[in-house]
């Protein structure tokens, strides 16, 4: 097999792109969890028959989540530019990528969080109520620990979705492996670079999935 093409590849550029992808992923995942987890919890708690049942708030949040989830990310990225500028001071680059990534992924995670919480048996919540637990104690002592496996699985799926969203960063000069593969592989017909970036992305997704599975196994229901 002829591996000579490997020497023609600009490895430092691939290194930079890999780092950019990891930075975008790490930064956006952090804020996605910070935003999506509470949103999912509120969606669950305000739903019918739950501890803080509130039909109006639940419906309003549901609409917002559904609207954000139905917009294709590439359009969201452009549409959100003024918002991005307001938050980060720039519309472009790595920093310009984070707000749209978070706003695109947080509603997705929120739905996964809501589903995971719904998996907790109602009887267990009722048992805690019968012990005299308040809502905070039920959330921290019952809901979150009991659904930890589902929550971690949801975060894993969200992280992988974020990896594919980062591929669109090229549009705002955000960099990363996806951008590299489009620029060199698609526009310049440098298939080798595309192959390398695809392999790297594949490895990244594989690592994320395996790490996620391990965490779910370790912290999930015994």
């Amino acid at each position, binding site marked *: 097999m002829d591996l000579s093409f490997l020497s023609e590849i600009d490895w430092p550029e691939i290194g930079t792109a890999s780092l950019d992808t990891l930075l975008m992923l790490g930064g956006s995942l952090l804020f996605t969890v910070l935003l999506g987890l509470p949103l999912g919890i509120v969606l669950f708690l305000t739903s019918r028959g739950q501890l803080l049942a509130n039909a109006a708030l639940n419906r309003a949040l549901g609409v917002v989540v559904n609207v954000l989830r139905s917009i294709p990310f590439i359009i969201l990225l452009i549409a959100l530019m003024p918002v991005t500028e307001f938050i980060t001071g720039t519309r472009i680059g790595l920093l310009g990528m984070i707000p749209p990534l978070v706003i695109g992924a947080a509603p997705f995670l929120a739905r996964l969080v809501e589903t995971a919480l719904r998996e907790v*048996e109602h*009887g*267990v919540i*009722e*048992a*805690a*109520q*019968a*012990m*005299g*637990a*308040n809502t905070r*104690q039920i959330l921290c*002592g*019952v809901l979150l*620990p*009991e659904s*930890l496996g589902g929550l971690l699985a949801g975060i894993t799926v969200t992280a992988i979705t974020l990896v594919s969203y980062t591929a669109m960063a090229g549009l705002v000069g955000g960099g990363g492996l996806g951008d590299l593969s489009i620029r060199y592989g698609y526009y310049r017909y440098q298939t080798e670079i595309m192959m390398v970036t695809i392999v790297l992305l594949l490895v990244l997704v594989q690592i994320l999935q395996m790490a996620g599975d391990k965490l779910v196994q370790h912290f999930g*229901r*015994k």
Partner: protein
Amino acid sequence: MMVLSLLPGNAHSLYPYHAPACKQHYLYLQLRRGNVIKRPPSHPSQGPSVIQLNQIHKSYRVDGRDIPALNGIDLSVAAGEIFGVIGHSGAGKSTLIRLINLLERPSAGRIHIDGSDITALDGAGLRTLRQQVGMIFQHFNLLGSKTVARNIAFPLEIAGGLSRAQIDARVDELLDLVGLAEHKHKYPSQLSGGQKQRVGIARALANRPKVLLCDEATSALDPQTTQSVLQLLAKINRELNLTIVLITHEMDVIRSICDRVAVIDGGKIVEMGPVTQVFLHPQHPTTQRFVSEAEHIDESVQQDAFAHVPGKIVRMTFIGETTYEGFLGNAAREFGIDFSILSGRIERIKETPCGQMLLAFTGDDAAVAAAFAQFRSRGIDIEELR
């Protein structure tokens, strides 16, 4: 009508009880249908009532219509007793028990616990009440993400006010009480059903409640495990003098450990009294069905089967130590009469020995009557069936 006398020296002695003679029996039932058949309390000497329900009504709103679940429940549970509520599914028993810790709120009526009205409690007051009322469940409802020890510690953490060391000490105490010390660090999924319910019991007792509510606590267990869990509940009742309210659809559960029982049907209590009385002399059709299911007897079939048997057929019921006495042989010798046993059972209701037999007596009418008078004077209940 007959009156059973008190049996001295027996903790579960009988109270005067009126049973109609057989022929009027069914008429009597017809008349009483729909009314509560009340009997004297089993522990008149015990303390004041811990739980009191007055005219409780509960209805659920379904599709804009009110569906009644409970219709005017009056109930009083004495301190230290084990009170059973039996009913078929849909009778309202589950709603009834969940009212006591306000997991359900009554649509009308008042609930008192330890003399104070809890009906309007909310917020912190409600949470404090719930810490004083333990509850165990049919499906155990343990936290799968926590070990046995952490499950038991959870209500203590909720209540607050104890140090980590105090909580650990209390958890060990409770583990010993329910016999699970060696399973301390296991997770619920590693335990059997009976062990899970023991964890449930330990958890419910953690905050030293005044009352323990058991919501079909043994319905998911096999018969053997059921008995061991019931014996644990009886032990806790004895040793901690804890008041227990349990609901079930199994007469065996009532017979094993309850002092008093209420039979609930269609959202109403149709019969209530000491278990020995309700069990041996069921009045309401629902109660009779429960008893005959538990005993696997069908009286109408039985009576047809004995149509050809000569003599006077009676049902004798004995409670307490007379159960083991040789009164039948004595009477046969003394009055020159003869008897044959058609069917019968000797058993224990909680700790009270009791028996019920269908007998045919043959001999001189006067002698048979004299023998019956003697039985009655010794506290044996006789219903003349034919």
